[in-house]
């Protein structure tokens, strides 16, 4: 992928955006209708949140899922999964156990039509180094991922920046295994360059670490771009003048464009959870991102 290959972005939404709304003021049907109404094509979800009966949804629900996708012309993108390394209070999780959980999620994601599975891996340090079992656990799943045409993609999420030993370890894993079924997911929260409002129960320690924004230089994306398969367009607040209060999209999107990124921008609204607010915020984000992309495309001619 060379910098000169400019591609159109693809637009999607993660149901994570509708956290606390889904199940209290809207169901899956309304959520998918809202996403389709944006002109978006991609739908992302979290397995153990949005699949009723997870990890074993009944076939009636699976039929319903595919009917909704067809009605709204949406395609499943990324399936959020967890490797819950603290599952057992008395002992650590083994790599085999982690692989078993991840395999189960890969099977389910594939059955539901997804292309990507993001394992959220438990950490072992204050600076969020993932549990070392991740490497063996994921390696055990690569053959299955290939058979089920799934790309496993751990998430680069604040406070971890793009230039970081954790990311380097993922890149070495790609180089060592040569697998095309492993890649990186970037959460745009890493580009946040202004502080978030305080949340209830927030401690000074947590604030220091990541809530002021780690302000990764968007240019850092260029080097990593060949390994990035999916982008979660994390955001927290966009005002009535279409100004994002935290994420510098005007600086981020040109770099993605320059890097030849043609994958999804999948909205992850993470702001105020007042009922119904997420619906309007996601619309603002898509209006904003598309506006910037139109401008970039016009400049390029």
């Amino acid at each position, binding site marked *: 992928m060379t910098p000169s290959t400019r591609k159109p972005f693809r637009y999607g939404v993660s149901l994570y955006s509708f956290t606390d709304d889904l199940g209290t*003021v*809207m169901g899956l049907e309304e959520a998918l209708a809202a996403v389709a109404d944006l*002109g978006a094509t991609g739908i992302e979800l979290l397995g153990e949140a949005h699949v009723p009966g997870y990890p074993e949804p009944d076939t009636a629900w699976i039929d319903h899922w595919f009917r909704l996708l067809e009605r709204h012309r949406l395609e499943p993108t990324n399936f959020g999964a967890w490797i819950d390394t603290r599952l057992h209070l008395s002992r650590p999780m083994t790599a085999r156990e982690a692989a078993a959980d991840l395999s189960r999620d890969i099977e389910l994601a594939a059955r539901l039509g997804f292309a990507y599975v993001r394992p959220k891996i438990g950490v072992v340090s204050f600076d969020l180094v993932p549990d070392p079992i991740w490497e063996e656990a994921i390696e055990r799943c690569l053959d299955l991922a290939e058979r089920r045409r799934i790309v496993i993609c751990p998430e680069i999420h604040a406070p971890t920046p793009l230039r970081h030993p954790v990311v380097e370890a993922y890149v070495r894993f790609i180089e060592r295994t040569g697998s095309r079924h492993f890649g990186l997911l970037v959460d745009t929260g890493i580009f946040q360059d202004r502080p978030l409002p305080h949340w209830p129960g927030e401690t000074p320690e947590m604030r220091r670490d990541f809530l002021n924004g780690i302000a990764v230089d968007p240019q850092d994306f260029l080097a990593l771009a060949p390994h990035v398969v999916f982008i979660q367009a994390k955001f927290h607040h966009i005002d009535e003048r279409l100004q994002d209060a935290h994420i510098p999209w005007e600086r981020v999107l040109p770099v993605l464009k320059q890097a030849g990124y043609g994958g999804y921008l999948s909205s992850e609204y993470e702001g105020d959870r007042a009922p119904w607010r997420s*619906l309007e915020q996601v619309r*603002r984000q898509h209006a904003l991102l*598309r506006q910037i992309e139109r401008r970039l495309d016009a400049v390029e001619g």
Partner: protein
Amino acid sequence: MLERFLVQSRGFANTGPQGARTGFELLLRLPSYRGLRASLVDGVDVTVDGERFDHTLNHYVLQGRRLDLAALREASDLRWPLDQPACIQVDRPGGLAAGVHEVTVGVRIRQSYIPIEFQPGVVVETRWATIVLP
């Protein structure tokens, strides 16, 4: 399930072909504790960013039928159920700019059991709503 606002987030969009928009439309929850036959609805005034579009000029889509105000007032055979939003269509050459707009609706309803002096009752609500595509 519908959104609590009368004007729904979903469905607020320009109409006509992109580049040659003819107007816009929005989906509206009925501001009443009961469904109504269409002839009991006396139209909806719409104001966007201070620009008013009178209920006499707008069009109304209920259960797949598109009506002007005169037809709406005669439509005693058509129902606007609580669980189905109506679509209000507004003529405006060029449509609306992509982005966030201040949208006010005034929904005019004629109830039979309230003295005629107070009819139609008008339910007014304002919200921010976003046009995604120009």
